């Protein structure tokens, strides 16, 4: 096998396959985790019947969705209706192409394998661009269903996702300024060389940035308390009311993948990606960044997965916690919050960050 083939075809394809497989598995268990955590917060037990403590519950659900009869209602706009689930899930998956899951590397033959599919130097821009494509799927689904509740849901989500894109972008801008690069790998490395996460960056910790990013991310992914597009108590199921079976599963999948994506980005942008949690103690850094020193780069990669996964899990836990706690905003209140609070806050945040950078340079 030629090295070129290995470097440009085999390794990337294998990486993509691993990422997608891992994502699907994570989503399946994220759903279970959500049900279990909600159950725990609501003094219930959650699913327990399928498998040990319900571990196979979502697997069974997936099988059910796969084998369900695929119904296309007669009154829909067929082409757009069929296209919508695809349009919504592709950007969600494609976004993971630039996420650095871990540091370290190992060699297969002469080719070095890293824990990211590609390191694009405009990674952040790519992410912002590709994730905002997701809204098309929602609007298409709402519109093509040719039914009133989905249409209201589609319109709501179009407005919501477009408005929350702005504060999301603004909080990312300050990270860009701090890191001086748009490459996600570069951002993590900048935090590594700075010796602290951007969340604790001095003199202006990016706590407000994290808050803006996280809340906008929740709004982007249509989760409680911002789940208006699919507010089941008002709009039955929102934009995917008319979908069933596999097509519905795509929407469901996309929502959870997007949740994971927000988790990954929060980890990369604010929590230093795969960097270990050292509590600022310098001596801890070496042993904590590689649990398996005898495996060299591969050990560092595995350790990085652990830290990265932990951070993502914490973000996702927050998601689920919020879901069990908060009521839902109303549409106009959501818009007001986005435009009148978050965007000004985001702009102010960018300015303060810029000033802080000036101060730091002296």
């Amino acid at each position: 096998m030629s090295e070129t083939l290995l470097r440009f075809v085999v390794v990337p394809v294998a990486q993509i396959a691993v990422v997608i497989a891992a994502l699907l598995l994570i989503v399946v268990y994220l759903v279970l985790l959500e049900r279990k955590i909600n159950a725990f917060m609501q003094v219930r037990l959650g699913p327990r019947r399928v498998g040990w403590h319900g571990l196979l519950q979502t697997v069974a659900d997936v099988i059910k969705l796969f084998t369900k009869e695929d119904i296309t209602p007669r009154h829909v706009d067929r082409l757009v209706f069929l296209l919508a689930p695809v349009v919504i899930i592709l950007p969600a998956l494609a976004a993971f192409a630039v996420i650095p899951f871990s540091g370290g590397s190992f060699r297969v033959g002469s080719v070095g394998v890293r824990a990211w599919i590609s390191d694009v130097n405009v990674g952040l821009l790519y992410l912002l661009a590709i994730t905002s494509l997701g809204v098309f799927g929602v609007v298409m689904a709402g519109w093509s269903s040719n039914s009133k509740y989905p249409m209201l849901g589609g319109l709501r989500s179009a407005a919501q996702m477009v408005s929350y894109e702005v504060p999301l972008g603004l909080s990312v801008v300050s990270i860009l300024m701090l890191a001086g690069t748009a490459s996600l790998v570069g951002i993590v490395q900048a935090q590594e060389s700075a010796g602290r996460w951007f969340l604790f960056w001095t003199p202006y910790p990016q706590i407000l940035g994290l808050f803006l990013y996280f809340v906008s991310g929740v709004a982007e992914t249509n989760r409680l308390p911002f789940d208006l597009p699919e507010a089941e108590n008002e709009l039955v199921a929102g934009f995917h009311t008319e979908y069933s079976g596999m097509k519905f599963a795509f929407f469901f999948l996309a929502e959870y993948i997007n949740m994971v994506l927000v988790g990954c980005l929060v980890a990369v942008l604010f929590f230093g990606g795969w960097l270990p949690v050292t509590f600022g103690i310098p001596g801890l850094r070496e042993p904590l960044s590689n649990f398996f020193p005898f495996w060299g780069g591969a050990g560092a990669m595995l350790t990085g997965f652990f830290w990265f996964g932990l951070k993502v899990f914490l973000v996702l836990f927050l998601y689920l916690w919020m879901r069990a706690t908060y009521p839902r905003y109303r549409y106009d209140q959501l818009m007001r919050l986005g435009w009148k609070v978050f965007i000004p806050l985001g702009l102010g945040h960018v300015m303060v960050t810029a000033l802080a950078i000036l101060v730091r340079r002296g």
Partner: protein
Amino acid sequence: MDDVDNKTPIPPPKKADPVEEALRAPAPSRALDRLGEALGDAIEDVAYHCGVPIVRVGRDRIVEVARFLKEDSGSRMLLLADLCGVDMIGLRGAPRFDVVYHLTGPDTRERITLKVAVEEGGEVPSVTPVWRGANWHEREAFDMFGIRFAGHPDLRRILMPEEFDAHPLRKDFPLEGREKDHGFWRRPEDETRNTYRD
């Protein structure tokens, strides 16, 4: 009834039952006094039962009486607790229906009942201008008894389907419905219709 074949002797007139006496005892009512002073000519009859005055009012005076009871500072019957029809066919024959208004004064803590008699097919003036809440009650009375209310803003059936052609709380409507009401909602096209899919 045929009197010739009637073998049972006519029962002697019943002695007044003390309990019944007590039930029918008149009770003081400020609202009724005020009404008597102001609109005494509208009152056709007053009876008492369980301590509540039951006032029979002329059909065309009901709105006037209702408005007086609501707006008069002495009675203040602000709450129209209930409005319903009664099919009187088994109790007195004609006129067939009574419309019964139960009024409550939330701050005077008094109740009063008004009654209006109406024959089949007759109309009663609507009290919706006095209490907005009479709207659905009157629709229900129309639905259940076929009593029409003149001046009602939206007199449609409320509980029964709109294409229903009888008034089910009338005494001549059988409890289990008529033969043709069974399977009322089934339509011939339901048998062959296959919805949702091509």
